[in-house]
């Protein structure tokens, strides 16, 4: 699973974001899509009731995406597209809550267990007959697949040893009926085409910058959901994202990329041109400095993970390991399965996941939603309270001791829902100031007798492996790293990845400061890419490990750039 390069820099929006879900709720009956789904679901359950093995649960989810994208490189537009699509996901279960067709078959590799689903396109028009025709054929297809698979599951249960986790396959849940207003897509295509060109124009002045691009994405996602428990939901979310990325190359062939990413729930929440242009100027200066920066050799020692880097650090080493379904699989590492009630972090640290939070301070959060992909209302979940591990993120797939969903069943359309992260928020009860945290780092460097410590300022993302076959480890990919010397001076360096194993690394978190930064991104895992956020202060870790980064062996371009904008043609 990974958390790719879609992070947000710290910035203060000039305008407070407005709540997206304004407007009067409509009655479910008046929504053509919802009504068609409800009618077909009821008809299917009635028709299948007479079968020898009838379904005990059925849900439909239609996800609509309306979007606009504009992209430019070096000041010139490369694409500008609008899109509108709807996809259908069906969850049909035979058996019962204890044992059904979704149970993981032992010895089945993760890829095959999770990659079977595929998005099915449905009409983008509110035509009940056309929608029901697709729902009908897909329900039949899923029913037949479910029957086949349930037969295999029943055999698997008998021929394999008992699983350690005795919980069933599905948990009962309350029904919800909520119909939210659908917000409009607020993006002026011509304006954004101009803006992405403008943001990337400065890169064209530097021949040693080989890629300089920007991309704006505006999206309104609306989900219609019905299930046989009686739920009927229509919920929408908006996302406006701006990415700027650029890349240079050191003389030794190392690719040196940097990214800027901004996220907001409405266009007014994105930064103004001046802010972006200043960030681009800073990015160019850093890129040029990185080309000359010295390489770092593998190292262990104290380090500060500045806000965004620390958010990704917690996302990778903690977040993925508290996703409930991983405690169920016999192939997962289950790092924290027996750690409930145990201390994982210093007493001053608490970590919670809160999909009900749309903002942190002035920054909008990408991982917010009202209902998850199983129609369960989003809930704040405290995972670590005063350093003690308390809870897992749960979908409707129960595990021993955690019988119910807490609204974290998530997926990208076309994938099977599992428990996933939302907005990860790290809080430190008695935070240090930035200066105090730096002083602690220098003290640790001197105490350990190290020539320097490290400060990770920007990261690209990371990934982690949580299974048993591969080592249970993580890798966070830094982009901007500084050596911090005992005298307090700093030096920009390059060429390292931050690596480690979860329990050891968590135990070495010693302090956090009062400067919280937010990382908004898309997290990819077995249920696809889902928007997430991580808000965390800078943290001091008494010992981290870095390894050499893989690097390209290609030299920089042989010929100079062809033409600069001011050159005579």
């Amino acid at each position, binding site marked *: 699973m990974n958390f790719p390069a879609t992070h947000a820099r710290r910035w203060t929006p000039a305008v407070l974001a407005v709540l997206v879900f304004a407007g009067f709720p409509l009655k479910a009956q008046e929504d053509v899509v919802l009504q068609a789904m409800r*009618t*077909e679901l009821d*008809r*299917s359950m009635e*028709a*299948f009731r007479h*079968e020898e093995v009838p379904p005990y649960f059925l849900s439909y989810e239609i996800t609509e995406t309306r979007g606009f994208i504009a992209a*430019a*490189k*070096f*000041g*010139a*537009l*490369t*694409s*500008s*597209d*609008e*899109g*509108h*699509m*709807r996809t259908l996901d069906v969850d049909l279960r035979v058996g019962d809550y204890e044992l059904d067709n979704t149970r993981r078959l032992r010895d089945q590799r993760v890829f095959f267990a999770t990659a079977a689903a595929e998005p*099915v*396109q*449905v*009409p*983008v*028009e509110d*035509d009940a*007959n*056309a*929608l*029901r*025709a*697709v*729902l*009908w*054929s897909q*329900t*039949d*297809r899923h*029913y*037949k*697949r479910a029957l086949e698979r349930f037969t295999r599951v029943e055999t698997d249960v008998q021929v394999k040893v008992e699983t350690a986790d005795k919980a069933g396959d599905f948990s009962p849940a309350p029904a919800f009926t909520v119909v939210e207003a659908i917000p409009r897509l607020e993006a002026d295509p011509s304006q954004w085409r101009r803006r992405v060109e403008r943001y990337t124009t400065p890169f*064209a002045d530097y021949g040693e910058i*080989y890629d300089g691009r920007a991309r704006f994405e505006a999206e309104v996602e609306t989900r219609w959901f019905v299930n046989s428990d009686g739920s009927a939901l229509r919920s929408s979310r908006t996302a406006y994202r701006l990415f700027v990325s650029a890349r240079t190359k050191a003389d030794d062939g190392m690719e040196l990329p940097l990214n800027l990413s901004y996220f907001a729930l409405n266009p007014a929440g994105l930064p103004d041109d001046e802010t972006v242009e200043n960030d681009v100027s800073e990015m160019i200066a850093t890129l040029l400095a990185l080309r000359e920066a010295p390489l770092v050799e593998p190292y262990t020692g104290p380090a500060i993970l500045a806000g965004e880097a620390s958010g990704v650090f917690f996302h990778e080493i903690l977040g993925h390991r508290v996703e409930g379904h991983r405690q169920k699989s016999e192939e997962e590492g289950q790092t924290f399965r027996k750690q409930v009630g145990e201390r994982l972090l210093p007493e001053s640290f608490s970590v919670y996941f809160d999909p009900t939070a749309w903002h942190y301070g002035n920054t909008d959060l990408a991982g917010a939603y009202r209902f998850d992909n199983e129609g369960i209302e989003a809930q704040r979940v405290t995972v670590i309270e005063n350093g003690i591990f308390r809870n897992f993120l749960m979908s409707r797939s129960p595990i021993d001791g955690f019988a119910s969903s807490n609204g974290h069943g998530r997926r990208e359309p076309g994938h099977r829902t599992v428990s996933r992260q939302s907005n990860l928020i790290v809080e430190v009860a008695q935070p240090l100031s930035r200066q105090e945290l730096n002083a602690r780092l220098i003290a640790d460097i001197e105490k350990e007798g190290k020539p320097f410590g490290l400060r990770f300022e920007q990261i690209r993302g990371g990934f982690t492996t949580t299974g048993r076959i591969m080592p249970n480890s993580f890798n966070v990919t830094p982009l901007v790293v500084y050596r911090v010397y005992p005298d307090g001076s700093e030096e920009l360096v390059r060429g390292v990845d931050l690596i480690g194993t979860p329990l050891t690394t968590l135990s070495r978190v010693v302090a956090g400061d009062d400067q919280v930064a937010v990382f908004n991104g898309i997290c990819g895992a077995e249920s696809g890419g889902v928007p997430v956020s991580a808000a965390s202060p800078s943290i001091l870790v008494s010992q981290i490990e870095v390894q050499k980064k893989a690097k390209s062996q*290609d*030299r920089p*371009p*042989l*010929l100079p*750039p*062809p*033409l*600069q*904008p001011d050159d005579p*043609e």
Partner: protein
Amino acid sequence: MRAMRDELSRTVAELRMEELEAPYFVSYIVRDTERMGTQASFGALLPSLARRSRMLTVELRVGDSSFDNTNFLSLSLIDRSSPTTALLPLEDDIVELRRQIWLATDTAYKKALESLAAKRAAFTSQTASEQLDDLSPAEPHIYLEEPDRRLPPLSEVQALVRRLSGLFSEMPHVVESGARAAVRHRRTYYVNSEGSSFIRNDPAAYLNVVAQTQAPDGSVLSDFVAAFGASWDEIAGQEDLTGRVNAMGQALAARQSAAAIEDYIGPVLFEGQAAAELIAQLLAPRMVGTRAPLVDAPPNISFNVPENPFRNKLGARVMARGFSVTDDARLRSDGFLGGYGVDDEAVPAGATSLVENGVLKTLLTTRNPIRGVNGSTGNRRGRGVAPSNLLLTSRRGLSRDEMIAELMLLVEERQAEFGVIIRRLGNSGYRPAPASGSNVSGSKSDVENATLAYKVYPDGHEELIQAAEFSAVGDSVFKEIVAASDSPTLYTLNYPPPGSDFQTGIPGFWGNLVSVSVPDLLFDEMILRKPSGNLPLPPVAGHPFFEE
């Protein structure tokens, strides 16, 4: 063109890595494509797209034409074996166009040097099965077409697919259906270091309606209506589209209650679309001269590149006497849609006589030489070789009545109960989503299943066959042709060459347009059988629209 030429000049004059070789051949091709596509189901629109892109592909060779970095595949360089491409700005910004061309050229040059070194190393331990040059010569050629027509409004395309897909609301027996359409306008720009250049229009438009039903025994039956044109007007102007869709629906209904053919060995007459599809599916791929690259793989890894079985049959009889096959890229009117002025290597379009009086004379080629064929036939389309307009002719053509009489004669000779006429063949590019777990609509042979076929009895009456699958259709089948009709069917289809870049995002619409002109064909003997595979159960619930 100016950006491409400027950067080409600089590359030829200056690009060289120290002691290593400079490029001896460089070409740039830019495909500036506007395209739109849409789909509809049961009268309602599915997602549409409308997009413009400019894609550059760099072809750069080091070494010399007798031995260069191409025609070589190394598993250790597999990530570097793909063509070098770059997305170019949509605006005519020469600074940025040149920047992207410069970066792509640099990447292509480094890849080429590595490939050449690896190929030379591979030749120290193995020899190629045949010693052939890597690039055949071609005279410099300059070609220019004026800008062509533009795309229609998307709403116009949407309206037609919506209307045609809505026809199935009158067909209760159809369980899956859909209509899709795509239109493309493309200007292709090309320059190379030998002095060739061209600007060419590559328009294409496509419409496809598919339907599927299920027989009482579970057999899945599908069919399609397809239409092609050089512009959307050529499709939208066809008056019989509604009638063709309705006829397809009626044929599917009739096939539901028809019996499938049991094992049959005997004469088969292919009429109209079926004859054209047969030639497109079976003969067209055998008319292209592809070359297997030298492969550098560890000894324990088997890496086979499929070869055209006709490659070793130059000069041999591959068809019955009296039959000839010609590829003619010059044909660009009267319904021929596979023609062009110049191919993707700036080789002028021409006519190539492939089969003469049943004997294979040559194969279609690009500038990548193959044994026994000198030079390019001007059939480089995208990344590979593809036919343009394929014409199968017979020295003697019979009227329809005479064809039936010939068929009956063969039946009589065998003292068989009946013969078989096939009027439609399936095509793997035209299929709705598989119904209810079905995987049976595909074919197990090189030829798709017959979708409209009849038993013909000596008294002249015809009996509809539900479906038929071909068995053991081999390379020698064309020698079994015993008669051809006097009037050909002109038919166009998508022909997918390896590495085609003609992707639209609309299923079934990709590849190059290839037209085939084929008379009805009577085969002395073919083997047909009931389609194999597991049969899915019928849906548990009835179709919601028709049930209510």
